[in-house]
């Protein structure tokens, strides 16, 4: 019985000690982080660039005006979690026909979290035979990726997928 009590006392003592150390280390890290660092100039510039960067809604408005984008006929394949934001494989597949008169004319790739969301446009022709295109992209942070497909008739179809990025891909901050 006596032995057991000792155990409890010991564990409580140890717990308090551990808690104390953790708190102290947390405080230290925080204070270190709040110190002005040498990268503040770069940070300032980066913030300016962010300010100059485009919002996803502005991008959509600039590209498509008030045209309606239907969420159908397009499948965007992207990883749910990307370990490296510098290399994210994506595939855009559309089941829309690829005939002479009816084909997918353009594929737009937009990444909401990037400074410039509109990252790529791909022009296709009916000779492709299949509306599918794959490439690898960079993402700065976790965000939605959109693929918008435009047919030669001017109709817009799209798909949207969230991608979680654990390390950003544009370098720097």
């Amino acid at each position, binding site marked *: 019985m006596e032995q057991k009590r000792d155990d409890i006392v010991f564990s409580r003592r140890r717990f308090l000690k551990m808690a104390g150390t953790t708190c102290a280390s947390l405080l230290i890290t925080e204070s270190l982080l709040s110190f002005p660092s040498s990268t503040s100039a*770069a940070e300032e510039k980066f913030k300016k660039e962010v300010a100059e960067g485009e919002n996803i809604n502005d991008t959509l408005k600039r590209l498509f005006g008030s045209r309606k984008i239907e969420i159908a006929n397009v499948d965007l394949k992207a990883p749910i979690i990307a370990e490296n934001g510098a290399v994210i494989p994506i595939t855009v597949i559309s089941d829309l026909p690829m005939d002479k008169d009816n084909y997918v004319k353009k594929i737009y790739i937009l990444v909401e979290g990037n400074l410039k969301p509109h990252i790529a446009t791909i022009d296709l022709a009916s000779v492709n035979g299949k509306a599918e295109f794959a490439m690898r992209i960079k993402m700065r942070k976790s965000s939605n990726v959109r693929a918008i497909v435009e047919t030669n008739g001017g109709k817009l179809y799209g798909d949207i997928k969230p991608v979680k990025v654990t390390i950003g891909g*544009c370098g720097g901050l």
Partner: protein
Amino acid sequence: MQEGIGEVKIRIPRTISKGEIIRVQALIKHPMETGLREDKETKEKIPAHYIHDVSIYYGDTMITHCDWTIAISTDPLITFYLKADRSAPLKIIWKDNKGGVYQETVQINPQ
């Protein structure tokens, strides 16, 4: 500067039957520098150096064209499809913002 910049690999199926829709993969060695990164030692910005234009020709007709920005990964790999209905060369041309032009041609010979 990365070694072997502009080195190209294009992969097509070994045998192609006429009218078949084939998958083509093309890889090019390129740093795709964003211009946002800085050198860890000198703290200087690394100037942007990226491919902004990819044109793919089947015979004389352009079948696919890409408009790219800095947000494409290093050593860009593209996968696209092609309806192989005739014997013709498949030519891919990459252009970067520093004026570099890289191109590669493979012959498509449907049986």
